[in-house]
């Protein structure tokens, strides 16, 4: 609703597919409105680039309402940008001032190889999930939904953890590039529910082992992950994952 647009200077990481590294390229976008989303501002840039015959900046995005977990970039040094509890697509340009210079980098971690420009490969998360992020049961064998009473407190705790969208910002923000928050959210969710009980020990050991195999770093309890998490997943889940892990290890 602002009448006058802002001018925003961007330093965007450009990296060709298959290249070992890339570099920052400077761009300027004019007539940026406060109510535009950050990605809409990049859309405008891309329109201009295509009109000039240049290749558009590639960035992953899909739902543009903060739930699919597809988008993600580091804006001026912070994963998902300066507004807490938001994904990149939820950032509005009202967070910035006329004349600002913003740096835009991909999520960086060895297990998240850069594919092109700001697009990274997060398939490591899928492989971790495949090691135990499920309840082993086939369609058809479920008892009535009310067969297991689950206290509201436990259901709420499970939901807090289950809210994870798998965007990878926790890894991107972690000084050690650890995936502890992501992995713990799934382990923690299932540990609050009776359905997850039979596979508890096995699940935590297997998912942690896969997380390590993928080459993620170890968690040093800095808590940067929680600060950038769009769904505000608490690091209490990391503590819970460790408890589950120790229990699993001791039971063999």
């Amino acid at each position, binding site marked *: 609703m602002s009448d006058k647009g802002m001018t925003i200077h961007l330093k965007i990481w450009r990296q060709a597919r298959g290249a070992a590294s890339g570099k920052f390229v400077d761009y300027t976008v004019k007539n940026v409105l406060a109510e535009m989303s950050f990605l809409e501002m990049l859309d405008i840039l891309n329109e201009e680039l295509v009109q000039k015959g240049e290749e558009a900046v590639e960035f992953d995005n899909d739902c543009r309402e903060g739930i699919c977990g597809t988008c993600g970039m580091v804006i001026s040094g912070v994963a998902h940008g300066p507004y807490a509890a938001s994904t990149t697509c939820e950032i509005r340009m009202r967070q910035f001032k006329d004349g600002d210079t913003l740096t835009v980098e991909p999520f960086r971690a060895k297990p998240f190889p850069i594919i092109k420009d700001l697009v990274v490969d997060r398939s490591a998360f899928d492989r971790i999930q495949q090691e135990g992020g499920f309840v082993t049961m086939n369609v058809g064998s479920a008892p009535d939904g009310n067969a297991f009473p689950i206290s509201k407190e436990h259901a709420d705790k499970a939901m807090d953890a289950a809210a994870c969208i798998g965007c990878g910002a926790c890894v991107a923000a972690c000084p050690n590039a650890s995936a502890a928050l992501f992995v713990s959210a799934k382990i923690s969710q299932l540990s609050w529910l009776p359905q997850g009980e039979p596979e508890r020990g096995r699940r935590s050991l297997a998912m942690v082992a896969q997380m390590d195999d993928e080459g993620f770093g170890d968690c040093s309890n*800095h808590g940067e992950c929680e600060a950038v998490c769009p769904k505000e997943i608490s690091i209490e889940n990391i503590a819970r*994952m460790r408890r589950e892990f120790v229990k699993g290890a001791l039971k063999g």
Partner: protein
Amino acid sequence: MAEKGSVAWSSVGKKVITGLTGLALMGFIIAHLIGNLTLFIGPHEFVAYGEFLESILFGKFVIAFEVVMFFIFLFHIVAAVTVAWTDKRKARTEGYRYAKNAGGKSRKTLSSRSMIVTGILIAIFVVGHIYLFKISPSKENLYATVADAFTGLSFTIFTVVVMIMLGLHLRHGFWSAFQSLGWANDKYLPVLTRVALVFALLMAVGFLVIPVFMHFTGDPSFTMPGGH
């Protein structure tokens, strides 16, 4: 689901080791500080306290204790260096060109970021400390040795600085140990971090007043009556 690497040396295992050994080391420094405070009662009491420790189990206790402490230190250091140095470097080979702290709910502080530096400084200090006061004492009793060590201003200042480093280390290390062992949740975490601040301050101040006190009041020529 094959076993992949060792459970104890997994990313979580290493944190559990760091946390357990950290708690043990914190227990040790609490006892150490209480023992040291006998200095404020007087030289005789301090020396007697040292002799008492040496006498437990006919002197075998101290040796056994030292061996155990050595391994606790060793595991703490190796696990922590792997977490915060080698694994960390492997996990992000190309770093950010522009990075800043997220702020908000982050618990990243000067203290958490400097764990590896403060830890290494403390480790070096501990080696020197043992050499100076244990392996090669400059005087015939512990009080005189301590007093002798802190006559010089530069060593005193160095020790004070290291104790501030210890405080920084504990500021993060205290609550982090509980978090690493899984003994934390949203209710206890804020309490633990506040207790960590108080604990770190108490330990740092407790330990740094000793060199300052000894620098100004210590008597390197003190001898125990009865000929030690």
